[in-house]
């Protein structure tokens, strides 16, 4: 029995060289299924709370702009590869929470995530708990989560 083709694919990445494989996988999947591909970037600015800085509103705006720019680059790449329906969403806040929210909101059938290769910070995925998070995400968001190595 063949698996039902997804109509909406979410690809949650930050951009950069470590996301390359994840993005490639999401593009391939979108091309295979003809699904809409949405790149998702959660802008987490918790690292700023340790810095002694001035007004955060301007900085948040800059981070949002940067997030949008990196997502636009990915959209550009997907379009060049032939994906017809591609867009992006940038949200502010904790990555885990935002992933849960966006999974439910977009009703995506598939989410493509990159498997962590190291533990860069307290707010993002760590090797030891990614599987647990993926299970919860799949259950609560009612979607299939693909972890790209």
């Amino acid at each position, binding site marked *: 029995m063949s698996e039902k083709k997804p109509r909406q694919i979410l690809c949650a990445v*930050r951009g950069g060289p470590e996301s390359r494989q994840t993005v490639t996988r999401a593009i391939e999947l979108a091309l295979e299924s003809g699904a809409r591909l949405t790149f998702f970037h959660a802008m987490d600015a918790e690292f700023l709370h340790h810095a*002694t800085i001035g007004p955060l509103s301007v900085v948040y705006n*800059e981070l949002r702009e940067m997030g949008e720019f990196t997502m636009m680059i990915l959209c*550009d790449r997907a379009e060049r590869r032939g994906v017809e329906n591609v867009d992006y969403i940038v949200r502010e806040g904790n990555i885990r929470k935002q992933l849960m929210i966006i999974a439910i909101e977009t009703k995506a059938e598939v989410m493509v995530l990159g498997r962590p290769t190291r533990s860069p910070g307290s707010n993002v995925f760590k090797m030891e708990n990614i599987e647990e998070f993926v299970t919860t995400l799949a259950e609560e968001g009612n979607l299939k989560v693909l972890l790209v190595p």
Partner: protein
Amino acid sequence: MRARKFGFALSLLLALGMALLNNWQSPAQERQSGALLTGIIYDRQGQPVFNALVSLISAGGNPIEQSNTQQDGRYALEIPNPLPDGLLLSIERAHFHSMELPLQDEVQAELEQGGIVALADLTLVRRVDIGFWIATLIFIAVLILIASNVLHNTLAALLGAALLFLVSYLGAAISERLFIFDFEGALHYVDWNVIFLIMGMMIVIAVVERTGIFQWLAFMAYRISRGRIWLLLLILMIITGVASAFLDNVTTMLLMTPITIEIALSLGINPLALLIPQVFASNVVGISTLVGTPTNILIGSYANISFNDFLINLTPGVLLALVGLMIYSQLVYRKSLQAQTGDGISEILLQKLEERAIITETEHLKKAGWVGLGMLILFVTGENFHLLPSVTALIGATALLVWIRPDIEEMIEAVDWTTLVFFITLFICVGAIQEVGLISFIADGIARLVGENLVLAMLAIIWLGAILSTVIANIPFTAAMLPVIAFLTKGIPGAESKVLFYCLSVGSAMGGNGSLIGASANMVTAGISERAGYSITYAYFLKKGFPALLITVGLASVWLLIRFL
């Protein structure tokens, strides 16, 4: 009826006032015939001892007259008439051994004649007790908490200050040796010039950063360079450096990093090849002015070094270091600067980049420019009429607010109160180790090490500062080192030019390039870069940053040696 009541109340008040006046006058009348005994009390490092209790004790052991030493260590005792025989001068001060000395016959004779007698300078000797160890441990704990990011900087310093007060007030009830300082004594260590200067500059920065000038400048660099990435790198380093000389480094990097990443991505190069040299430039060039870094603000205020002094004595060295840094960056990133990856960039992305580089508040920028120019003139000329930099910053900030009339609530929010609280509580923590004598012991140790050799002292401070700043936060380090440098300045021939303070400025700021945690600007740059998918790890930064430290600190050392020897 009402008039009578009012008259009665008025008479009562008058009577009370007269009674108080009489009481207030009576001690003065008693002292009219008395002589004056004065002198100055120093510690072993030659620093005046503030708030020591100086008492004149009778032969029976009763205090006849008491006075506290002023900031300059001076005391003045009014001597009653007639003067009893066998008087003792007693000096008591927390964290020092008490001292008692009999008044000599000739001094007593002079006092009896009603003159002013100045005693020879007295030296109090430090006493190491439990309070010393507690204050030291609390300070080290604050440094560790800040360096390890376990607590926010402000929370760490606030916790330190709270613990110091807790020990001083509650602990002192158990044993007086637990006493460190009281609230009033702690406030004595807070440098309000620094607090108000930072506050004023924060308001000015809040206006400027909303105008989009940084994004516009970065985009102009992109345009001017016309695809020559080596040139783009040089222009970005200059823009970042100049901005850091007038604004704080963290704000500069917060605003420059996102747009730099976007430019790098649009050019198909690794953003780190631009970002890392930029943050190096920010840390190096920031120290060319009084307001460029918090450490310079601390140093300038403490040592009374003016805006012009920094420009004359540090800027050439900073420029020399910047040239070295530019050459180094071109060499280190030569491959990344040449290698363009990807398939090129679409028109939509270029358009997006261009849209970002728009000055959003042109009028505000013009007004900020005029006010900034006025402030610069006041910073430069202010020392001629004893205008403190903090006053200039406050005048500038107020003028800007009055002129552009922004949402005042928003502007007040723009002041980073957590930073101001950090500085206030940090001053208290540093004050505690100064109070208990730790700073004096460190100063003594360094003085023994360098002797009277100015070159050795200069190199020791620059390089010790640079190396230590790679692992400990440079603001608390600088704050703690200031009294040490003041002591060394007094004792080393040739150091009266304040050269050792410039050495501290160079070491503590340029040392920030040595490691990722060496400067806040490094941390925020790494944080933003990571959010775009480009990680700056500790090892990566160390590999690129430590040679940068050696080059820039080396060149700045050469300049300082040429300038001051």
